[in-house]
């Protein structure tokens, strides 16, 4: 069923009784050309682009919970492509371009809102680093502008300019950055993939990876064995757990990242702001809640819940940036499990095991990457060659000494 204002009008006249399911609930078939493990944003996007762009439609997406129950449903919805390094920058820009045409592409309003992303700086060194970054963006044709203190003040006069411990000196602004309604991304991709024949199988947990003569032939699941030509893992957060089923150890640790939403407010802040002197970032959802977060808790965890001390830290940084926040309230917190990689950058690559493909290591930046991740992973699976923007995301880069380390913090995942 195609969605439009007209369909809403017509359905509304008849009591909204004739809307049909957005996606099927198929029984798993015994064999698929491609089985994708993980019905989150990346897995669903991969299936969508496999079917839509690469003509591979005999595809199943296996999700152990409900659709989008992983990180696509528990993030802070920010999209941007303000990356520094050549391994990252073109990839995230591809992603932003795909976001820009996404809704028309899959006929689902995911509320892509390019309201701008502003990274504040508070020292000369930070300014220099942002200058370098902004210029790297401009070299690739990405929009970037360096705002001075007064330009930031004109945009966001309620930040703490006058009593701050770390005064705001300016910011790096990407006008095309913004936010997207995160759940709708999963639903939109699912609906688009489903309509092209992809089987999205919810509540189907993969319990083992079957190999014959070292070649992957299928997966054991809570709903029986499912054979496949190619097996693609898109289980960020739990990548190590799924990879271990094939005997693979990954350069990844799983960490919990908490995020928060406030009570609903009338329009308060109209862009995404990150606080360069403390771990804090904030935007406002279309529903009115401030959506914000901070750093990861720092210890390995699969628990989807974090510590109070981190919450306090986020509140401190929030109030330091915007003193008016003090009287507003946290409504809810949640925790997502992040694949923190050894250099802070992702992996989209074949594995040493034949027929096994890996999409992992997104750290806390997986959401914004969703379209390009799906596109490039589909490219890799369909063509057995990396997409040109994802060439650097190799699994062997660590061993060979080519880390993509935006922050320069080295092989300690919880620092990225």
């Amino acid at each position, binding site marked *: 069923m195609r969605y*439009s204002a007209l369909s*809403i*009008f017509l359905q*509304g006249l008849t009591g909204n*009784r004739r*809307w049909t*399911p*957005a996606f099927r609930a198929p029984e798993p078939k015994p064999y698929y050309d491609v089985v994708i493990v993980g019905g989150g944003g990346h897995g669903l996007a991969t299936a969508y682009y496999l079917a839509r762009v690469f003509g591979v439609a005999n595809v199943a997406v296996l999700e152990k919970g409900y*659709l989008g129950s992983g990180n696509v449903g528990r993030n802070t919805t920010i999209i941007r492509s303000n990356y520094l390094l050549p391994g990252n920058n073109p990839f995230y820009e591809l992603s932003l371009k795909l976001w820009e*045409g996404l*809704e*028309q592409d899959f006929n689902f*309003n*995911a*509320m892509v809102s390019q309201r701008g992303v502003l990274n504040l700086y508070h020292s000369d*060194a930070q*300014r*220099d680093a942002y*200058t*370098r*970054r*902004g210029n790297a963006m*401009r*070299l*690739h044709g990405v929009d*970037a*502008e360096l705002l001075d203190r007064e330009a930031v003040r004109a945009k966001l006069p*309620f930040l*703490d300019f006058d009593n*701050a*411990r*770390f005064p705001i000196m300016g910011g790096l602004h990407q006008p095309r950055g913004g936010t997207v*309604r995160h759940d*709708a991304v999963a639903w939109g991709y699912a609906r688009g993939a489903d309509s092209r024949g992809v089987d999205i199988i919810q509540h189907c947990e993969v319990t083992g990876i079957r190999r014959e003569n070292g070649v992957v032939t299928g997966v054991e699941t809570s709903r029986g064995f499912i054979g496949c030509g190619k097996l693609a893992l898109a289980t960020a957060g739990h990548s190590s757990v799924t990879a271990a089923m094939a005997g693979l150890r990954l350069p990844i640790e799983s960490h919990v990242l908490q995020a928060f939403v*406030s*009570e*609903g*407010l*009338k329009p308060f802040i109209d862009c995404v702001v990150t606080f360069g002197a403390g771990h804090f970032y904030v935007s*406002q959802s279309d529903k*009115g809640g401030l959506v914000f977060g901070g750093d990861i808790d720092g210890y390995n965890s699969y628990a*989807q819940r974090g510590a*109070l001390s981190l*919450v306090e830290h986020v*509140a*401190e*940084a929030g*109030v330091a940036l915007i*003193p*008016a926040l*003090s*009287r*507003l*309230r*946290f*409504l809810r917190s949640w925790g997502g499990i992040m694949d923190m990689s050894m250099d802070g950058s992702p992996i989209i690559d074949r594995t040493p095991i034949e027929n096994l493909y890996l999409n992992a290591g997104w750290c806390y930046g997986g959401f914004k990457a969703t379209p390009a991740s799906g596109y490039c992973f589909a490219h890799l699976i369909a063509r057995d060659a990396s997409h040109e923007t994802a060439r650097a995301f190799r699994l062997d*880069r660590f061993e060979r*000494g080519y880390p993509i380390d935006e922050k*320069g913090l*080295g092989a300690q995942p919880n620092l990225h």
Partner: protein
Amino acid sequence: MTGFRLPRGGCIDRSRTLRFTFDGRVMVGHPGDTLASALLANGVGIVGRSFKYHRPRGILTAGSSEPNALVTLGEGASSEPNTRATMVELSDGLIARSQNCWPSAAFDVGAINGLLSPFLSAGFYYKTFMWPAPLWEKLYEPLIRKAAGLGRASKAPDPDRYEKSWAHCDLLVIGAGPAGLGAALTAGRSGARVILVDEDHEPGGALLSTGGDVAGRSPTTLLADLVGELENLPNIRILSRTTAVGWYDDNLFGAVERAGPDFLSTGHAPRERLWRIVAREAILASGAEERPLVFGGNDRPGVMMTGAVSSYLHRQAVAPGRRPLIFTTNAAGYHAAAMLEEAGIEVSGIVDPRTEPEAEWRGRAPVFRNAVVTDVIGGRGVSGAVLDSEGRRSRIDADSIAMSGGFTPRIQLACQRGCKPVWSEAHLAFLAPERQNGLTVAGAAAGIEGLEGALHDGSRKAASALKELGLDAKPAFSAAPLNDRKTYALWRVAGTRGAAFVDFQNDVKVDDLLLANREGYGHVELAKRYTTAGMATDQGKTGNLNAIGILAEARGVTPGEIGTTTFRPFYVPVSFGALAGSARGKHFQPVRRSPLHGWAEKNGAVFVESGLWYRSSWFPRPGEMTWRESVDREVLNVRSNVGLCDVSTLGKIEVFGRDAATFLDRIYCNAFAKLPVGRARYGIMLREDGFIYDDGTTSRLADDHFFMTTTTALAAGVLSHLEFCAQVLWPDLDVRFASSTDQWAQMAIAGPKSRSVLEAIVDVDLSDDAFPFMAAREITLFGGKLSARLFRISFSGERAYELAVPAGFGESVADALMAAGAPYGICAYGAEALGVLRIEKGHVTHNEINGTVTADDLGFGKMVSSTKTDFIGRAMLRREGLVSQDRPQLVGVRPVDPRDGFKAGSHIMRPDDQTVLENDQGYVTSVAFSPHLGHMIGLALVKGGRTRHGERVVIWNALGESYIEGEVCAPCFVDPVNERLHA
């Protein structure tokens, strides 16, 4: 709407009148009122408007889960949106405003959305607003955002104070209702350390709003006795107005204490305080939430929970109307009816869907068995109701409705750490495990019925929790007769004509849930996300179980098979203020002051934040108009005369031990083991991955004592790294560390005349023979009056010394040096001049050591020892990517036209290349204006840069629209052969 104050009764102080305003109307109330009770007493019906359809809304509850009566309190910087009127204690001068309505709550233009509701079904926005694409951001989204949201926040800084505190106890009791009081008393009498928290402004819970007889006493008497005894026990701390909001690992509870209404007058107490309570055991006695019934118009102002009706009647002597109707599935409705009748209010009827209603009803009101209310009659309030009794419809007059669909145990806190609630068919509710490690659920929260049952259950469970701790306690209340539980499920009334709301605040109707299910979003989590049910400020406390029941019915399964959404912190919304505490404004992070801060201030320093430190940045003198003038002067003066710079912020670590030398050999990539006593050496520390971590000078003061310096930024990191290596990698080495950053005031005395200045105060021979370059010694000053450490090291490239003196004497010594240096033209110089001096010499800092460079990249390749057996980073240095030819290498850059300036962060491009990322040659890491050379200079990391000296490049800065011609050169602009070090 006809809410009113009864002439008698209640726990309010009628002798005092409090004046407050609501939407500009002046009203009065009494101490003991909440804002909600006072509004009811003043006949206010419509308190606000709902989120989506702007329906008029009144007051639903008397507690913290109130979804409708959200108001904005206060004005200006102190205004506070989305405050539940039910939780606000009335105070004199209180100002409250309704929300989400224009021009007023009573007449709101946005109510037109209600007429459009057929087209605004769940998820409608996902299906439209997509064409034409640009209109989303320009038109649709701004309209949606403007319409959405609840209250309006002030953007001015919050003027109030907040605090945090730790607390420790044997037993934390959450909730001071009957179960909590029983638990606290049981534990209190045993001598255990007890903390009792309760979110109301007085303890009592359900005992505060009930009549009749409990354990042989009136609830009021019983409560007074219990509280009286508790208050006299020294081992019990009662925290009223305190809501436990989160249960965290290791039995840590977060609780927020609100100031009472009089806090403004007391001045020094915080407005809110976050308690971090470490409890060995905890009892969750949070009671149960009464469930609304889902029928047409159930959101009309005047439709309330029966518990709220009882509470307002008993505590504040406020009645919801003069002719209320009761719609109930359980005994609560009858209790409310009895209280109303006792207060002289005529109850128009009791509608009960059960075929066998409460047998003991002795009141006057007629009971309609096997009947339901299908719809409310009335536009902005209640004028009557449509009854459906076995298919027969009739109308009944009423001016308000009290409803009760049963009770949902408040198990939220018990399920915040991953445990899944389990459906109990007997209770028609989800229950948490009665006991998890450290937490026991008691009373109504555990599904226990009745006040006596709760008293006993709390007592019993406290005793057994204390037993876990090895403490002996006797339950304060003995066993109570068990109530014979009769539960009845009515998740929604069928056949309603009007909209029947499940989530009031978010305007989620029965139809929305059914639509979500039809469209494939029937999983409880998907239904929540698709319809927004349970996402309002009450987080589904009022509506979620009904939503689950409705989904279960639609899918033909039990509510247990539907399951709940996940309970997460916080139990109620918590302010940023409470969570931030006093760490705000200038106190966001502590300030670190150099021991020479006072000296720098005296000399007119401009300070800049550097991590937590304030460092002196430059020292303007009269007549200097720009910072550059001052910095240029300081730089030139150092090169021609002498300057004094505070370098106290550099990290300083004493390294002791028989194996200290061996240890340092493994820490630095260059050799230290053979460093003689009395000498210093520049060292480079790698990370295990082979990239540079930090650099600094380390001196040997004795065979078993080194003095290490680190960069300011990594002082703490390096110490941790050393400790890791010593304790984890090589615990067999005898080596110990003491940070002495704060012990020493350290100053660089640099410039050709530095020796002459120093000679005035030091007691040692400073001749080049006696104190050569890289000498490092413990010396005395002022004829033996003061011990100090002197190092002949140079960051500026000039003859220079670093003098470390005990911090308390720092200012005095600096003063002495300035005085001694006056004849030589000494000046104070700051971090900016230091930066210029080092860039002129090509010395690196963290601008260059950015975590992605190797020693070879920076030209230190020869320093990396090839003879030492092992050191941190050695093995991984061999990787292909770390030795490849096109790695960035440190170079200098200068403008071809000396008038051109450029910025750090500019990229380096070849002049004829297309400006695309693939052609990027590198970037400028540091820049300075060299007063020595009279033009800008820079350091850069350029691919294969060491072979490219002399190459013309573009210094490319699109952000600044500056593209200048530059030349790559050696990374040293002044004195490349280091003659000045000895000058």
